[in-house]
């Protein structure tokens, strides 16, 4: 009886833990991963495996350099798997294998571990990896193909947003909203099917891993912003539905902006964060040089999180 534990209350804890939370995200990403592999074929599958493996190995290496114990356990806590998978989701289907390696390396080593590892990073690791690749290897990162069943030889194609930016509204209108929604439109691995992403997000909402504020405010703001321009000049601007089902909005709003480490703590803060993401995405898409603005919008809003947190503290009881 000399070994009874004396510890600080409470003495019971929820059964939910970090691993469960992270692997819930992995589970939620699986439908999109499967659809991606079905449409883009073995190369897409390989990119996902390489990205995840690189992320986990980089995580382990960084933990070792930092002198942490329990390296195997921590590297496999799921957070590196999520970052790697999301990085792969941000690659074009024909991206060379080494982009997955470099992207994951940058995501984990630079975006995550230079800040102190899990919980301390300011920016979404996968998005830092994506932007790093986009700026460093613009050619490889913007070569798109048409999704076909188990694609082995690729047919070059433009994305709806690329077409909108370079060839105007008419070219973009060749893509149907329905196609965008179901997943038969060129794009990144994870962007291809909005419906698969929505199924995953519904799971996360039920499991209470994410809350509704960020996705709803993100998508809602983008729809309102692009809707205003569409109403003013429907001949020049695409309709809001086109904007919310094309490109990385679904992936970004449901899975990247909702990353708990890099989004605000309070519900009120999350609403501001979501609105900011939607607004910046709309501005970049309509007026910026890049066809897509989701990644930049989220990263910019990530930088604003400490400020948002400071000004959105919950009102305490009894004041």
């Amino acid at each position, binding site marked *: 009886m000399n070994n009874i534990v004396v510890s600080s209350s409470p003495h*019971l804890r929820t059964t939910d833990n970090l691993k469960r939370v992270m692997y819930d995200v992995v589970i939620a990403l699986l439908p999109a991963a499967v659809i991606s592999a079905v449409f883009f074929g073995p190369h897409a599958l390989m990119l996902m495996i390489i990205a995840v493996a690189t992320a986990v190995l980089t995580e382990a290496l960084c933990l070792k350099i930092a002198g942490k114990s329990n390296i195997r356990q921590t590297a496999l806590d799921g957070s590196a798997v999520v970052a790697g998978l999301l990085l792969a989701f941000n690659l074009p289907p024909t991206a060379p294998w080494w982009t997955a390696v470099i992207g994951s390396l940058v995501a984990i080593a630079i975006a995550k571990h230079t800040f102190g590892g899990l919980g301390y990073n300011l920016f979404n690791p996968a998005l830092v990896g994506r932007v790093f690749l986009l700026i460093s290897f613009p050619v490889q990162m913007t070569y798109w193909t048409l999704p076909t069943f188990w694609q082995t030889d690729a047919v070059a194609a433009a994305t709806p947003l690329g077409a909108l930016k370079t060839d105007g509204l008419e070219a973009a209108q060749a893509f149907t909203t329905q196609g965008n929604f179901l997943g038969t439109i060129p794009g990144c691995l994870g962007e291809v099917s909005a419906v698969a992403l929505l199924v995953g997000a519904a799971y996360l909402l039920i499991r209470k891993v994410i809350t509704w504020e960020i996705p709803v405010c993100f998508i809602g703001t983008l729809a309102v912003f692009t809707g205003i321009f569409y109403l003013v000049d429907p001949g020049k601007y695409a309709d809001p539905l086109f904007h919310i089902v094309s490109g990385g909005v679904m992936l970004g709003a449901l899975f990247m902006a909702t990353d708990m480490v890099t989004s605000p703590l309070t519900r009120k803060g999350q609403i501001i964060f979501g609105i900011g993401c939607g607004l910046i995405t709309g501005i970049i898409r309509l007026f910026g040089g890049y066809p897509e603005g989701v990644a930049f919008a989220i990263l910019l809003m990530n930088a604003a999180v400490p400020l948002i947190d400071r000004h959105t503290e919950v009102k305490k009881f009894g004041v």
Partner: protein
Amino acid sequence: MKLFTFKRGGVHPPENKSLSEHKPVKSPELPNRIAINLNQHLGKPARPLVKKKQEIFVGERIGEADGFISAHVHSSVAGIVTKVEPAMTAVGILADTVFIDVDKEKTAEELAAFYQQTPADFTQMTTQELVEKIKDCGIVGMGGATFPANVKLSPPPDKKIDTILINGAECEPYLTADHQLMLEQPDALLNGLMIIQQILGVQNTWIGIETNKPDAIQLLQQKTDTGRFPGIQIAPLKTKYPQGGEKQLIAAVTGREVPSGKLPFEVGCLVQNTGTAVAVYEAVCLNKPLIDRIVTITGFVNSPGNYRLPVGATFRQVIDDCAGGFRDESRVKTVINGGPMMGKNVRNLDVAVMKGTSGILVLSDTEFHYEDEGPCIRCGRCVDGCPMGLMPTKLAIGAEYNRPEDLDTVMDCIECGTCSYVCPTRRQLVHWIRLGKPIFRNASGS
């Protein structure tokens, strides 16, 4: 049925009450030796009044209240004092303790005498007499905070109390002592409340009971429906932790928020625990000091249940004699004085039952896991769960890095444990917040 609840935050951990629920209160055989601590209450410990080899009787005052916020301590047994010296208590601090060799026959006789007399008629007594009796009998809040009851029942004259709230929520998982008390002693409880109403000159009392105790709600409703207890009403509460928190209970029933840093009488309320009300009745009408109480012994023991234990019985004795011992001693991980959310685990089993011991909870390696804390992943569950509207993770980090400027709301924390309970990375949030309180106090010079 109208359901009352507090609005902000909260959590619903597994209740695990079925282990001891509805088990009638049993009185165990008296132990041979007993150890009564003199710090049974919030405030200054009592001064010892007895010496080695002194013969004492049941209910004899053995500790004298020392100062305004303090309480008398009485012997729960008859016998001979063997020593008076500091000993470890169930709340983890050293305190003067009176050790007594028990004269079992005499004790049983004297205990029975309390219940054989005709209860005194409290309606004939003055407020001062009532408060004096409560003070003389060493009554303290029995929900766990052990605040001297006579002090609470003498609010400053400029604060008008209009509502009395009785906490029968018993929102801590595992515990069933208050539930069983409501079922077995409803008349003592209601008479105790009539006494409290008389002292405060108020006829507006709400007994808050969580809906996981429907039989207690029904029984007390029937009793109050008879009209014999004017002013007393039942408030069924949603089963949600910490529904029995003082400020949460007030908010749930009256909709009033006790201002930050203030006491309930600021909003015209006074909160007492069900056990305290029964103790008040026994003190006033039977002249019986607070020398025993109902304790739930539960968890990893052979026969979990509710027991009337003398103050001073050691944990080892009562676990072995009442609850049939541990189910498997080698698998016992921790023994808690109180419930799992706010109770303190004891260092050894020689510590004694106190006036504030609502439960003795034994957890095995299947329920209790001590895990190292991970980093905050900013999931916000602690913020959503905090019933006081605080940002636990911010406060914890402020304490961890010694930053008083981040600890501005730390004194509002009621240490209910909701934040640590929900944390997926097992952050010791409440622990850090406890450490943050002195950091903030020192920095702000208060």
